[in-house]
């Protein structure tokens, strides 16, 4: 296994911290002070969250597409699929139920 040097790992953590700090601060500030519309704010909140999660997976959990981590990545993608079905499906079903009960 070709492991990165401590210096590179350290730089990764510092870069990750900076990116996460920005991706946390921007949505908080916009929600607290912003005059933006609800839809704009939702778009900012969720794109910042997705970006931050990707940054943390890459720079903190050090997951990449190398062959050694193929199964780790596969299990993550499969989990994300199930999470999507679970959360999306629940919202869809309950929304339909609500609509029919009106």
């Amino acid at each position, binding site marked *: *296994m070709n492991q990165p040097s*401590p210096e590179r790992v350290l730089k990764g953590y510092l870069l990750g911290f900076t990116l996460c700090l920005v991706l946390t601060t921007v949505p908080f500030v916009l929600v607290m002070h912003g005059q933006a519309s609800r839809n704009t704010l939702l778009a900012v909140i969720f794109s910042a969250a997705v970006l931050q999660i990707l940054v943390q*997976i890459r720079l903190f*959990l050090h997951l990449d597409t190398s062959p050694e*981590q193929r199964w780790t990545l596969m299990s*993550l993608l499969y989990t994300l699929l199930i*999470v999507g079905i679970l959360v999306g499906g629940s919202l869809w079903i309950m929304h339909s139920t609500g609509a029919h009960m009106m």
Partner: protein
Amino acid sequence: MNMASSSLQSPHEGHDSASNVTFGFWLYLMTDCLLFASLFATFAVLRHHYAGGPDGRALFDLPGVYVETLFLLLSSVTNGFSLIAARQQRTHFVLAWLFLTAMFGMGFIWMEVGEFWTLVQQGHGPSKSAFLSAYFTLVGTHGAHVTVGLLWMWVMMIQVMDRGLTPRIQSRLVRLGMFWHFLDLIWVAVFSVVYLSGML
């Protein structure tokens, strides 16, 4: 000896068994992810069911949540530093960084318990509405995970002092690191879905 350089590549006490252990722990984290997914789904469905009680806008203190978030983010980074120090066999640095990580983690739990306590004192406990039940269950489950992670961290500090940075201890530190980073990931989803979206 390239130990603990990263969270997903672990030390080799017999190469295959060590990477199997890491992968097995990763699979546990994935199942934990599904547990949180079901709680998120529940919260998403019930988020507007206030039963005449208050909504998120009336209850949430965003500056406080921001500070909590910074505590967890800082603790994730200091935990990473402890893994780098472990790889370099610097026992004192490992202990110092783990201690700092635990302090940030305890700061997070302290603020969360304070928030829950205030809500319950104001009569906005979990039984007030479906929204609050889902809120306390989701955020409380995350907080319980952080608490377990903190206990684990103190145990590891004692083990590092007691036995030094043996391959076995290093491999445990790597898994603790994975667990801790994972909880920060879940928290990103929590503050985005529960707190920020709840203010809109």
